[in-house]
């Protein structure tokens, strides 16, 4: 995790986002232990207070659980995992559609474009 953060967005949210993605992609699995605050701070080169805040945010959303004296773990609750997966998907779609609409593309063009792209992509996979 050496890739850098954007300096103009809150780091704790960017780090939370990064961890959410790792959980959804399966890089971090249900029940996995997250690095300690200090380890995470050193490896991502951010302030330990920031990591603390990220962990608090993630805990509030239920995606991770902190166990006293043991550390922070990815939840094994399927409902929460599914809802985060769904939430990230919605966010990406919203961003994409927003950009396309801003450039003046119509819904039909977008769906057709997506369809063609995905079919073409499937052949190359």
């Amino acid at each position, binding site marked *: 995790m050496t890739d*850098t*953060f*954007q*300096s*103009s*967005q*809150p*780091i*704790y*949210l960017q780090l939370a986002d990064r961890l959410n993605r790792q959980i959804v992609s399966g890089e971090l699995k249900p029940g996995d232990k997250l690095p300690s605050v*200090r380890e995470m*701070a*050193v490896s991502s*080169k*951010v*302030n*330990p*207070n*920031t990591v603390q*805040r990220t962990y608090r945010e993630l805990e509030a959303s239920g995606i991770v659980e902190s166990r006293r004296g043991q550390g922070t773990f990815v939840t094994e609750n399927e409902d929460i995992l599914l809802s985060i997966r769904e939430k990230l998907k919605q966010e990406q779609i919203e961003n994409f559609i927003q950009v396309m609409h801003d450039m003046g593309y119509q819904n039909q063009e977008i769906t057709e474009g997506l369809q063609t792209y995905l079919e073409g992509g499937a052949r190359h996979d």
Partner: protein
Amino acid sequence: MIEFKDVTKRYMTKTALRDVNLKLDKGKIIGLVGLNGAGKSTTMKLIAGLISPTKGSVELDGKKVTRRMASKVSYLSELDEYYSFYTVQQTIDFFATQFPDFNKEKAEEIRAYMNLDANTKVKHLSKGNRGRLKIILTLSREVPVLLMDEPLSGLDPLVRDSIVKGLITFVDTQKQLVLLSTHQIMEVEMILDEVIAIKDGVLVDHRDVEELRYDEQKGILEWMSSIYE
């Protein structure tokens, strides 16, 4: 934890700081930015008790700062002030005799982390390695306040990187307050909780960095350019 109340500091006819009010809390890493001569070093020396305000007061934990604050404050000055004939180890040992709060095990741990040879004489150290030595000596003291005046200045990027990582690893962000002045904002912006801008002796702004990003979608550099333009 640290409070400046209407602090003015004059040297002869020159006003270094003017009517500064400032509150700093423990458990934070705080950056102090400003052009040369803006009053950064003066601010640090006032907290360290090395100089006294001409007007107003500086308090640490509710008590007026005096020269005896040395027992609560670890101050890394801009200058190199170590005995050149000592080795790294001897310098560490010497510091351990000077400060009762000096943790020799921690010093050894940081020295190893920083990859600094214990037996090299200070006079034979490169500038980068002298920078590392300063960090070891400053961080090894178990004190509530760490003041670092330009800890990255004049050092190459690799050394700056190891110093920043050293700060993340060895500062106790639960208990210690770190105030550091720097021109190398890019290197430290991810580790700062707060940032303070001084201009011509006046405190212009003091911000929580994550709030600045959240409220204004601004990084420290953009914020600074809006101040110093």
